[in-house]
């Protein structure tokens, strides 16, 4: 009897192994091993960076947690994926809307959606990866994982090579080692994106630097005008979330004129949504193009 049980077990195991090698794709996500036995057709993503990764290999998600504001999705991503249904905010996406879309894959952010991971799993297989506070290289890694899961591994490898060439090509046209600081300005606070932030990583990939400070090592640093003067970057690039933002108010203060960037007229405005919120291959290329335009206008 024992023998027959062992025999049956072995057959089952063999069948399982055969099945997995035949259809399945296995990757490591933030919760461990993730296996999918079909090529997903109806994908719901809960962060912009995941939509960017899909669009980079020409796959269109059917639902995006876009904060019910379609303009937040990068124009280049919109062009590829066409229309989609909003599933609510990124912080509290509507699980019933996600369920009503009948997805066969959900891509969630470990930082925002870990508490509903079990619920998402009940709706569809859920790939959970870092997105919020990820670095540039984390983002590219996550993009590769996503591509593998949706069966576009080769396309992504090619796309990444193309991306690196593009970034190198732009980098050649930008000044080497220029010291450039990007920050997002709200009505009451300026947050600088340092080396460890996503945008900081993109700036480094383009052969430029962010100012060095030994104050602390967090990726996004709330900064006063005095601290900004101490950092004194050559170029200051600001995304304004509010109008007027705190930086607009600072520009009336005497201390503002002490900044080298102000004296040389090297202060620029960019779209904070694209520079800080979107994140992804297409977003990085958009940032590179923005920088090229800024420097070629000089």
């Amino acid at each position, binding site marked *: 009897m024992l023998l027959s049980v062992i025999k049956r077990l072995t057959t089952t195991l063999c069948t399982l192994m055969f099945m997995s090698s035949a259809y399945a794709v296995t990757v490591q996500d933030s919760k461990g091993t993730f296996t999918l036995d079909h090529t997903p057709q109806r994908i719901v993503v809960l962060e912009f960076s995941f939509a960017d990764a899909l669009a980079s290999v020409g796959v269109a998600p059917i639902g995006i947690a876009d*904060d*019910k504001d379609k303009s937040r999705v990068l124009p280049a991503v919109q062009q590829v994926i066409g229309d989609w249904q*909003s*599933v*609510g*905010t990124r*912080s*509290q*996406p*509507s*699980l*019933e*809307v996600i*369920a*009503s879309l009948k997805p066969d894959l959900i891509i969630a952010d470990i*930082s*925002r959606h*870990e*508490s*509903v991971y*079990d*619920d998402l799993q*009940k*709706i569809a297989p859920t790939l959970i990866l870092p997105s919020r*506070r990820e670095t540039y290289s984390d983002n590219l890694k996550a993009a590769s994982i996503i591509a593998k899961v949706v069966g576009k591994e080769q396309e992504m490898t090619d796309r990444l090579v193309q991306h690196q060439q593009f970034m190198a090509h732009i980098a050649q046209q930008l000044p080497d080692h220029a010291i450039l600081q990007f920050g997002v300005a709200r009505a009451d*606070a300026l*947050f600088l994106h340092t080396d460890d932030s996503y945008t900081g990583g993109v700036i480094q990939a383009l052969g430029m630097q962010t100012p060095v400070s030994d104050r602390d090592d*967090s*990726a*996004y640093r*709330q900064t006063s005008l005095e601290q900004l003067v101490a950092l004194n970057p050559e170029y200051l690039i600001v995304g304004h979330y509010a109008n007027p933002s705190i930086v607009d108010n600072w520009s009336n203060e005497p201390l503002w004129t002490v900044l080298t960037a102000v004296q040389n007229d090297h202060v620029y405005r960019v779209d904070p949504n694209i520079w800080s919120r979107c994140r992804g291959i297409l977003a990085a290329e958009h940032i590179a193009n923005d920088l090229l335009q800024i420097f070629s206008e000089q």
Partner: protein
Amino acid sequence: MTAQRFFPFALIMLFALSLANLLFGAVSLSLHDIWQGLFVGSEQHFTVYEYRLPRLFLAILVGAGLALSGALVQGVIRNPLASPDVLGVSHGAGLAAVFYMTYFNGASTEWLPEVALSGGLCAALILWYLCGAHSSAIKLAITGVALAAFWASCIDFLMLTKPLEINNALLWLTGSLWGRSWPQLQALLPWFVLVPFALGLSKYLNVLDLGDDSANSLGVSPQSVRLLSLAIAVALTAACVSVCGPIGFLGLVAPHLTRKLVGGRHQSLLPATMLTGACLLLAADLAARTLAPPIELPAGILTAIIGAPYFLWLLLRMK
């Protein structure tokens, strides 16, 4: 409105709101869909059984729990403006939760309810240690308010020094039923064995209303009644807050409103206030889900929108 008329009315309201919570949301369902959704394998099974049903029960329990705590605290402190917040329990739970989220941001959110629960209970123990078992109601209230302010300032300090984690922390501090399901319900349910004990205290709370001296001469020890009621209020508040975050004003508005409707007799006030609390939170969560779908607002914002003006109106009327 007398108690006889209040209970049927409140029960009908509770039933109607429960039904509305099942029917409406980002996706509207029919009665038939809901019935079908209760069974595994049906199309709406996730939405009905895994999502709306547990959330409905949670709204009822948390609403009832917070309202009952509020009524107990108001009964003990003998001030209609008192609420569980006066004891610093929700702020203590909030501080523990925010501390956990800011300093252990790699840690799993799975432990958040346990952390918040111990924070709330610790805050109550500190209050007890500072006041002792034999202190007057007013000393308890003032010390509690001071402690609550202290915990709140610690929360602000944490959020100012770690501005990055603010989003998650603020969301939790507003109080929301989003993403809460059967496991949270399971964690909360055992605490409700305290409810019969609270109801059993009704008679003594009535006597307490006559003042400590009269209570003593009637053979009721005011200290023990106070301690027991507050312990139950603290435990219920901490348990509810640990699951849903501190849902504002519920513990203040629900008992006060109910007192206006059914009077101050605790035998009817305590069960009635539970019904009111449940109805209020059900209504708040329904509005949170249906005002601007697919956006889900935190229910705590809705209770604050109703609660804050009510509180102001109350203050103005008291002059």
